[in-house]
Structure formats: structure tokens, C-alpha cells
């Protein structure tokens, strides 16, 4: 390189590698005018707009993001509500089932109770009927026996028997005997 430079200096004025001062100066001036305009005014201008554009685009993206997240939250809310509703329905069904069972149990118990009552009433009725029948039978038997005895004896024992109550006593004894034998 040095050899080249030396060669350049030795050569005549026409060496193309030897810069001339006026051209360097003009070149510098020409360049710094370009640089001045671009660096001080034009590029800051466009940078501002590019930044604004970037923000606008990012703002749009942010808006879309917000909308999406809102949609997502609403969807989740709906899902939660749906799940809750399902749960509630299941709970109600379960409750109804339980209530139904309880009701059935109650009805059954009630039925049982009524049946028992009816049976008890029937038993009481039968007992009363039986007692009444026994009562009337006792009277009839007593009367028949007295009548029969009066016919056999030949005189009426009716009044006497009524007064003495012998027959009653006799029959009571019979009953007691029957009770004891049972």
C-alpha cells in the first residue's frame, strides 16, 4: 500500500488514487447536508409514526386479547352455571327420591296402624257380640231350664228362681269352670 502511495506521489498529477481536497470537502458537505436532514428531522419523524403504528397494531391485538379473555370468562361462567344447575337438579331429584321414600314409609306405617285399629275394633266387636250372645244365652238357658224343671216338678219355679238367683250362680260356676279348662 505504501508502495502504491509512493507510486502515486511520484506519478504525474493524474493518479486516480490521490484524493483532491476540493472533492473531499464537497463530498463532506454534500453528505452532511443529507445526514443533517435525515438525522434531525426526517428519520425522527418516521420513527415516531412507526412507533405509533406499532402501538396501534399492538393496541388492536390487546383489544382482541381482552375480548377473547372476556369471552372465555363468560363461557366459564356459563359452564359453571350449567354445572351448578345440573348439580341442583340432581340434588332435587335425590331429595324428591328421599322424600318419596319417607312418604311411602309413613303411608305404610299409617296403613299398618289403620289395619291394626280395624282389626282391634273387629276383635272388640266380636268380643262384645260374644259377651252379648253369652248373656242372652245365659238368660235363655236359665229360663229354659226353669221352664223345664217347672214342667217336671209341675209347678212354676219361675218367680222363685228369679228371686233366688240360683241359676245365675250355677251358670257362673259353669263359666268359671270353662275358663279354667281353657
Amino acid at each position, binding site marked *: 500500500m505504501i508502495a502504491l502511495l509512493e507510486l502515486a506521489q511520484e506519478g504525474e498529477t*493524474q493518479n486516480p488514487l490521490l484524493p483532491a481536497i476540493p472533492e473531499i470537502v*464537497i463530498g463532506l458537505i*454534500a*453528505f452532511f*447536508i443529507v445526514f443533517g436532514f435525515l438525522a434531525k428531522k426526517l428519520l425522527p419523524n418516521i420513527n415516531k409514526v412507526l412507533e405509533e403504528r406499532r402501538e396501534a397494531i399492538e393496541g388492536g391485538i390487546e383489544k382482541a386479547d381482552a375480548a377473547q379473555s372476556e369471552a372465555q370468562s363468560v363461557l366459564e361462567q356459563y359452564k359453571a352455571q350449567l354445572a351448578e344447575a345440573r348439580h341442583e337438579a340432581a340434588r332435587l331429584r335425590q331429595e324428591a327420591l328421599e322424600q318419596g321414600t319417607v312418604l311411602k314409609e309413613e303411608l305404610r306405617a299409617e296403613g299398618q296402624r289403620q289395619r291394626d285399629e280395624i282389626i282391634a275394633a273387629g276383635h272388640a266387636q266380636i268380643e262384645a257380640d260374644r259377651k252379648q250372645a253369652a248373656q242372652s244365652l245365659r238368660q235363655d238357658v236359665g229360663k229354659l231350664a226353669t221352664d223345664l224343671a217347672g214342667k217336671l216338678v209341675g209347678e212354676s219355679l219361675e218367680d222363685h228362681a228369679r228371686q233366688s238367683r240360683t241359676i245365675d250362680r250355677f251358670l257362673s260356676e259353669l263359666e268359671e269352670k270353662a275358663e279354667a279348662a281353657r
Partner: protein
Amino acid sequence: MSADPTTVLAFETDCHIFDGCGFPAPGLHSFLFEPMFTAGGVDFNKPMLLALLSTVLVVGFFWAAFNKPKLVPGKLQMVAEAGYDFVRRGVVYETLGKREGEKYVPIMVSLFFFIWIMNIWAIVPVAQFPVPSIIGFPVALALIVYVIWVSVTFKRHGFVGGWKNIAGYDKSLGPVLPVVMLIELFSNLLIRPFTHAVRLFANMFAGHVLLLIFTIASWYLLNGIGIAYAGISFVMVILLTAFELFIQALQAYVFILLACNYIQGALAEHH
């Protein structure tokens, strides 16, 4: 600088093959221009005019696109944003990262578009001259980058640390360390700015010479059987114009990519 007699345009002569006229080959004289006017002892010539026109074009374009930028961009703003984004994301963020690189974005954007437009003059009719093929312009731009990365080095690492960074100080190198440091120092401080400027210069210079050769040849061969050769030569002009269009953008890109690499090296903790 007085104009060489051979700077007369090939088309202005009636020099053709088979006419006993030699090929008016392009050369260094193709890069000399009659001064348009002289102000304060300084000649103002065509490349300087084109450089200033580049300034007007770049500023004008970005002014139209970014002076009142809209949130929803129009066509012009969209194109300018794409270019801006290419340099910012594609070059600066890639090499320096978003945090460190942010403050170098304006200078890189300015460099890229300024160089690109200066290069494009090579294939613009009437202008037809790549400004960076005059070494002074790439030198000016490389000088700016040089000042930036050297000052960043010392600002980041301090005086001693800065020298260590530039010289690639690394204890693990052992006995070869002095040699390495010498080479690194030489390479970084002297060769780097030189190659940075010359890379752009030489590409544009060579591209211009190539275009000139085939353009002049197309005219020169326009005689008799030579017309067939002239046709081939003209096809080459078209192909090379397309090729140059690509090289122009590529060299502008390479220039700022290297600039970013230099700054990256200056910011790096270990060389």
C-alpha cells in the same frame, strides 16, 4: 487541471475502424473534467455537481416521504420505509444489535442512500458518471466512518483499553503477541480506511471504464463488417448497464456493512 485533448467524447470524432484511426481507448483522462466554473481558486466540475445533486435527490426523496408521515403510508412513504427498514433492521440491528445500533441508524441510512444515488449516476443518461470513481468522495465518506469508530473505541475502552482494542491485545497469544499487535495496529489504523474507500472507488472506477470501453467500441466499430461487432458490443453495453445497476447497490450496501462491522469491533469487549 486542464483537460486532456483525448477527453473529447468518442462520438464527437468521426473515428471508425478501417479508417486508419486507432481505438480511442478510455483511460485516466476519462475521469478528468473541464471545470464548469472556478470559485476562489477551486474548480467546480461535473462530479461535484453530481454529488450535490445526489444530496438534493436523497433529501428530496426522504422529505417527500417522511416530512408528513402517515400512520397508513402512501406509496412513496411505503417505499421509503422499506429502504429505511432495510438499512435499520437488515444492516445496523444485524451487526450492532438494537440497543447499541439505534444511534448509528441515521448515519448508516444517510451513507447508504447517498452512496447509492452517487453510484447510480453512472447509468443515468447525460450524467453517466459514478461520483465515487473520483477518489475524493469515497475518501470523505470513509474518513467519517474512520473518525466514528476510532472515537467510539476510545470512548468505550478508555485510552489504554482503546489502544489494546485496536491492536488486538490478547495475552493468550504469548510470544507472537508483539507481532500480532503490530500487524493489527497497522491493519486497523492504516489499511482499513484505505481499503474501505478504495473498495468503493475501484468498483465504480472499473465499472465506468467497462461501460466506456463497450460504448466507445460500439461507435468505433460502426464501419463495414465492423457493424456486426458493434452490435455485440452494444449488447455488452446493455448487459453491463444492468450489471452495474446491481453493483451500485451492492457497493453502497458493502460500504455501510463494513462501517457497522468497524463500529461493532470498536464496541466489542474483546477484540
